[in-house]
């Protein structure tokens, strides 16, 4: 493809460094969370990020969302450097992040209301995405009346309703039971293919990382760095055949596990010594 | 929404208290009416006087004796009734009306009745402390023993603990200990109030009696000087139990 617009990466990270200060009363410790992360994410790409816990995956995603700023380096979204949350990126949160005092529809409308959309128009957009995630019957329900899976559907509908091209998802299915999770993975893939979304998806689940991704980014721990980026060359749609039995799936998964395992074993050795 | 470090908070509080005391001292001297606002220096002098004449020690020991006696009785009653309503629906429904009534009635309103029925001697005064303190203990015992985790009971059973009584002592009470201590902490706070009420309303005695008699003589500096140890007693007992609670927090 020669289209020049598509040549611009959806997201580009240049030399991202981030340290945190753990301030306990007396001794303040600084921890290097991310050490020089460079990355280009193509438009329409599904990128999953996996790595041992504490490798800074979530920090990286929050930096991409501009919820926190890096100490050094730049986040460039569709060609423009950003320092604040913006309308081109929408986030889906691990703990769903639904307002308990708002009904499903009001939660989904929230980003539109913040941007002062006309009420009727906002409602129409929100309804479309509520239908898309299959919650039409629960429009006026409150979050505490919904199961975890349903709550995350609301979170997804909310992100979609912003119309953002880029979805930033922080272990969105981590708190959802295994069977519901598989269904939601399938639906997410459908929606992203239909709507041509760029997705950055954090997970700690190897199967999930390989299943969803065009590319998997493997991070290493302490300080967080990009260890490897692996192409997952599997045909789409991926839910109408046995992907997990596919040769490529098995190979990529085995490779990822090998690398992750080394990291974990090292970590254990450090901790026990 | 920046979290302030504990050191900063402490420093601010210490400075705050010092400024407050200075303002008090200066405005009291300017006002020059020790009935309404005695200066801090006068209060401290009164406190010193109470200490060296031994009045404070005598009063405090009477008060603490009353408080401890009351708390022991309240704990005993609270335990028996609490265990009863936790383990038996019948007992729960039979006792519920009285406990609800006791829960909503201010203890202070019952004190004159205690005076008529139990007299102003030690039993009467202990009764007031018990009325004030028993409810939180009872409720914490009841809820602690009711919500006792089923899986721990199963574990104990599988290792051969037999019988409801053995389970009660070996598993339920231990599992409920944090809840029980929380109840005891609330009870101690309310017990101090009950103690003060008993000492001012029934027979004057202890620290409450000290405050009331100086109040009747309009010696405000001595009133302040004797309120201070009472507040410290309350804070001390509650934080002591709070500390035990934190140490026990394994759940």
């Amino acid at each position: 493809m020669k289209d020049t617009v598509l040549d611009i990466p959806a997201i580009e990270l240049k030399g991202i460094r981030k340290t945190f200060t753990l301030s306990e009363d007396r001794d303040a410790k600084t921890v290097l969370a991310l050490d020089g992360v460079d990355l280009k994410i193509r438009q329409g790409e599904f990128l999953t990020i996996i790595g041992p816990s504490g490798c800074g995956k979530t920090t990286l995603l929050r930096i991409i969302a501009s919820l926190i700023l890096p100490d050094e380096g730049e986040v460039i979204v569709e060609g423009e450097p950003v320092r604040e949350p913006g309308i081109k990126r929408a986030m889906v949160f691990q703990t769903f992040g639904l307002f308990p005092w708002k009904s499903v529809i009001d939660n989904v409308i929230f980003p539109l209301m913040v941007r002062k959309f006309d009420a009727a128009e906002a409602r129409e957009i929100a309804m479309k995405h509520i239908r898309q995630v299959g919650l039409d019957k629960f429009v006026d329900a409150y979050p505490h009346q919904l199961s975890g899976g349903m709550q995350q559907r609301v979170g997804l509908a909310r992100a979609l309703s912003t119309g953002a091209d880029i979805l930033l998802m922080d272990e969105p299915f981590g708190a959802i039971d295994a069977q519901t999770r598989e269904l939601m993975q399938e639906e997410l893939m459908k929606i992203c293919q239909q709507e041509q979304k760029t997705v950055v998806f954090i997970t700690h689940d190897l199967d999930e990382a390989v299943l969803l991704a065009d590319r998997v980014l493997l991070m290493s721990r302490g300080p967080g760095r990009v260890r490897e980026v692996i192409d997952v060359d599997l045909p789409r749609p991926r839910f109408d055949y046995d992907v997990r039995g596919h040769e490529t799936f098995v190979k990529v998964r085995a490779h990822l596990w090998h690398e992750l395992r080394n990291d974990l074993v090292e970590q254990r050795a450090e901790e026990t010594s | 929404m920046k979290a302030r470090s504990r050191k900063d908070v402490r420093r601010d509080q210490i400075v705050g208290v010092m400024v407050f005391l200075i303002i008090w001292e200066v405005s009291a001297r300017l006002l020059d009416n020790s009935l309404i606002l005695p200066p801090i220096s006068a209060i401290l002098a009164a406190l010193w006087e109470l200490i060296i004449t031994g009045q404070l020690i005598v009063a405090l020991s009477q008060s603490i004796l009353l408080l401890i006696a009351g708390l022991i009785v309240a704990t005993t009653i609270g335990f028996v009734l609490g265990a009863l309503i936790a383990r038996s629906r019948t007992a729960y429904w039979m006792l519920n009306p009285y406990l609800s009534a006791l829960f909503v009635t201010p203890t202070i309103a019952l004190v004159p009745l205690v005076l008529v029925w139990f007299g102003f001697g030690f039993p009467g005064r202990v009764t007031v402390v018990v009325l004030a303190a028993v409810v939180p203990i009872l409720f914490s015992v009841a809820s602690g023993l009711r919500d006792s985790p089923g899986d721990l009971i199963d574990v104990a059973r599988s290792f051969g603990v037999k019988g409801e009584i053995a389970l009660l002592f070996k598993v339920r009470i231990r599992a409920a200990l944090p809840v029980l201590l929380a109840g005891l902490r609330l009870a101690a706070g309310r017990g101090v109030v009950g103690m003060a009420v008993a000492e001012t309303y029934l027979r004057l005695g202890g620290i409450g009696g000290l405050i009331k008699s100086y109040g009747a003589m309009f010696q405000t500096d001595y009133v302040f000087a004797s309120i201070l140890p009472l507040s410290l007693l309350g804070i001390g007992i509650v934080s002591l139990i709070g500390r035990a609670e934190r140490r026990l927090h394994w759940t």
Partner: protein
Amino acid sequence: MIDKLIRPSVFLPLVSLVVVFGGWEIVGRSINPLLFAPPSEVLRQFGELLQTGELQDAAMVTVRALFLGYFLAVVVGIPFGILMGAWTRFGDILQPYLYAIFATPRVVLVPLIVVWFGIGFEARLFLVFFWSMIAISVNTAQGVRHARPDLVEVARSFQATRLQMARHVLIPGAIPFVVSGLRIGAERAIVGVIIGEMFLQIVGLGGVITKGSQELLPAKMLCAVAVIAVLGTIIVTALDTVEKRFQDWKGAP
């Protein structure tokens, strides 16, 4: 009807009340009906107090001081709590005093209140207002401080302004805490008004108790205690219901 009566939740309390009050009646009557005030005696006294209007008048006096003091406590307590919560340093500096005031039994402060406010309406009002206000402020401040960080982040990620943040995240998040404060404050207010009426000016329902004890009439005291208990139950149950309604708003973090 019969069905309802034989339910354990109705049947057992009834049996227990009949047994206890029956026993009290028999024992009290056979020993000293005046001193032990059996239920029949209390009922007779209740009728008499209603007839002379003493009880209604007393209740009005109590309710007036209670409501005015509580109203002031709400009006002052909520803004003050917001200030304490939003300006953390101010809240931190104030905390030791609030803690000390809360830990000191109000009865022993009666001598100080007498020299500061006298024994009249103002003094009683202060007893109702001050402790209730503290309870409301402390809880409000807690609500303001404990905004859920995850929801703040959600609002930020969707570019909410400061005003939108306050309206959609901080205020709704604080409301359950404020409501808890209102309930605790009401409990404090009720005790405060009774203390004032028993120890300062002998009026109102607390005054009826004190007079009953001077006249050695437990039945009279019990009548006033019962009215206080009913009054307290109504107020606290109402606020309890509101509090439960807002429990879901706290949600899981």
